[in-house]
């Protein structure tokens, strides 16, 4: 039986997985997203980076397949799969033709539940992580972001997924397996699936494949354990890091709304006003009118227990002061001169995005999983739209008053320090 409506199925399976299924009749694909609550925020401080190493090593062999055979098995079905280490979760994703969803689920189960972590693969994974850490030197934007997060968010949310060279040096197969044993279990998983699928069959498949996947024997953590320790510990500060670059990286942030706050929709609109399109404040005032930058932007970041609004730009050293002053000026003067038209455009951008991205099965699976992650339930599109469309200029002003910018966490990376 196929579900032909857009009704989303949401349930907690007997194996412990929290599942959201969005049947989308007629789609040529199925997309599956899995998150395991064992991201880098859970790492012991002496083994920072172990999750990223685990992510690399977990695809290198299972009880049934060695690494190559496992990856070949995905490719044999034309299933495009990916992994990603995040703050709280490790994510596994896959897109495939509908006829292959059951064998894909079986393969993902095998990957997540029965990895063998071969010794040589673990060693290579650590080496690669160390090389990636060193290679951040060649990505000034990423490096500035890493330095700002460390400063602004505190422990453990301010960590970088790769860890540090000295902590990676302490990681071997034992630490990888320990992390997997402690955090990888069905009750610590959220799964979303979207596309042309048979909902009851998919549910049965997940139940069957993940049944009994909980080897923690009472020593592991429930999903919410340690959650209070994952707060954002905001530190206002300014630090300049010297680096020989043609452009200076400017990055700063201040505390914003949680994803579950009523103000989160207001923050989304605010970010849209600042940075949504080419008529946005930052693009207009920093780039169009003054020619100070090629890139400038604002965005928000939401760990589940906090929120941060970020602004950033990269510019040649002689423009650093003017660029920074303009960024600050723009976010502050919104409280005085924000217009209804600006708010309307930001709302329209968010609304249109829901439609355009709605044509993409992969995006719908990801959106559903975000809903489970933040809200513990699927949020109907109408509900999301209603919240966004109700935002007014007065709401944004109230938000700005409730989220002051007198204390910022600032990082610059380049050859010229800001004179603050």
């Amino acid at each position: 039986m196929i579900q032909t409506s857009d009704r989303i199925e949401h349930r907690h399976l007997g194996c412990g997985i929290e599942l959201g299924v969005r049947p989308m009749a007629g789609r040529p694909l199925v997309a599956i997203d899995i998150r395991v609550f064992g991201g880098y925020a859970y790492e012991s401080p002496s083994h920072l980076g172990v999750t990223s190493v685990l992510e690399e090593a977990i695809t290198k062999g299972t009880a049934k397949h060695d690494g190559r055979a496992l990856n070949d098995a995905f490719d044999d079905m034309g299933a495009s799969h990916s992994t990603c280490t995040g703050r709280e979760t490790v994510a596994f994703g896959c897109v495939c033709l509908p006829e292959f969803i059951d064998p894909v689920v079986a393969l993902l189960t095998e990957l997540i539940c029965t990895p063998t972590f071969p010794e040589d693969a673990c060693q290579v994974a650590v080496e690669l992580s160390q090389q990636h850490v060193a290679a951040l030197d060649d990505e000034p934007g990423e490096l500035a972001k890493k330095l700002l997060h460390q400063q602004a968010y505190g422990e453990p949310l301010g960590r970088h997924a790769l860890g540090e060279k000295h902590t990676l040096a302490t990681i071997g197969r034992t630490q990888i397996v320990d992390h997997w044993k402690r955090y990888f279990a069905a009750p610590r998983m959220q799964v979303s699936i979207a596309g042309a699928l048979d909902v009851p069959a998919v549910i049965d498949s997940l139940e069957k494949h993940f049944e009994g996947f909980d080897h923690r024997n009472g020593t592991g953590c429930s999903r919410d354990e340690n959650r209070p320790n994952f707060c954002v510990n905001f530190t206002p500060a300014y630090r300049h890091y010297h680096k020989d670059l043609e452009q200076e990286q400017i990055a700063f942030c201040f505390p914003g709304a949680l994803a579950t706050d009523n103000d989160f929709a207001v923050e989304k609109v605010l970010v849209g006003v600042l940075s949504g399109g080419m008529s946005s404040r930052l693009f207009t005032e920093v780039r169009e009118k003054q020619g100070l930058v090629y890139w400038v932007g604002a965005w928000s970041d939401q760990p589940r227990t906090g929120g941060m609004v970020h602004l950033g730009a990269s510019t040649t050293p002689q423009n650093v002061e003017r660029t920074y002053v303009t960024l600050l000026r723009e976010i502050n003067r919104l409280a005085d001169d924000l217009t209804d038209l600006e708010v309307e455009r930001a709302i329209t951008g968010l609304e249109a995005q829901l439609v355009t991205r709605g044509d993409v099965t992969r995006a719908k699976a990801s959106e559903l999983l975000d809903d489970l992650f933040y809200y513990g339930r699927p949020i109907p599109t109408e509900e999301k739209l209603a919240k966004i469309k109700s935002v007014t200029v007065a709401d944004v002003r109230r938000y700005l008053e409730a989220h002051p910018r007198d204390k910022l966490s600032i990082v610059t990376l380049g050859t010229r320090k800001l004179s603050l």
Partner: protein
Amino acid sequence: MHRSLGKKTLPELEKSFMTDTRFVQEKLSNDLTVVIEVMPHVKSAAGGFLARTGARDDPSELAGVSHFLEHMMFKGTAHRTWRQINIELDEIGSYYNAYTSKDRTFYYGWVRTGDLERQIAILADMMRSTLPADEFDMEKNVILEEIAMSNDDLESNAYDFLHECVCADSSLAWPVLGYERTIKAMTRDGMHDYFARRYSPGNLILVIAGNVDPDETLSWVNRLCGSWTPVTDIGSARRAPLVKQGKAVRRLGRFHQQVVMLAFASVPAGHPMEETAQVVAAILGGSNSRFYWNIVQKGISTRTGVFQEQYADFSLTVMYGLCEPENCASLHDAMRREAVELVEKGPRPEEIQRVKNLRRTALATESEAPFYRLGQIVDDVDYRGAPRPVEERLAAVDAVSAETVAEYLRMFPITGEGFLASVGPCDWPQ
């Protein structure tokens, strides 16, 4: 293995979603080509203007003019200031941008279906930009910032250096962004002469994809663009470079990693062997590839791959990798070793089949959203003259075999000297 879903089998379901689309291609009286893909199953629409002009068409003293022009096209028309252009695009919630490459410039937007006409109206107006003189110097500053940003990016440096070396006798050698000296010296009038020729309607293609009525669409396209005046002389014909062999190093001490690249001549875009070339690139350097297992998973390189750098008259197979400086020789040797192995022993049948399987899923992914279709339609129309239906593209994928791979590798060897280029802190190869 196929499973029944209701009344349709899976191949039929897949086929109907992907093949429910159809193409309409017309040329207006002023030589503007319009290509429409009707996609009945989508809620969004995407469209854009392709200008068949890019960095390789820049006169040498105006290196960077195509890209700078792309920026200036947003700066004002007879009907709209830059501010109005930006506001109107945001008023429809468009996801829009533009890019310039070596051989093309593309301006596009992705919108809700009902906003498509307005999207194209704004872009069409932009295609007749007045290139306002009072915005020229300000935008010059933005271009110079973009050049500085690119100079801080290792892979941008590597890409530019590779072309500088391999295409040394042609306009493909200079960077898309141009040089600081040519940008600083550029004048608005010099740019306008270039624009008037290269943006003649005969050198433009309007591409649209979405759930649209093609007759209605053509009617308003005619209204928006039909009055444009064609120009007969759009400038010099392109000349394919002779692919150089040799080696070269650019030492950039401020970076940590080294980029090592090996380039060989390959099939031009639109060639019957194009799909085979892509399969070879995927077997050697895609995900789950020989490079991945025999180079990355040996700890020699953090990232390595193979890509086809394709143009209508010329193409390169580029093997590349990023590594710690002390691993340059190992990375280079490993890339060559894998290429030799592939040439001498050929691909395994299962390797070819896996790439085909992934391509099939990729085609299905692409068929979902108008925005994803734009890029492929643009490639097809630019390089082949017409869009290809999915059956034709699937057939091209299915036709790849060990025999076609062997034939391709005979015609376009990936062993032999090639061109070895290296960029980073290490003076290698010496």
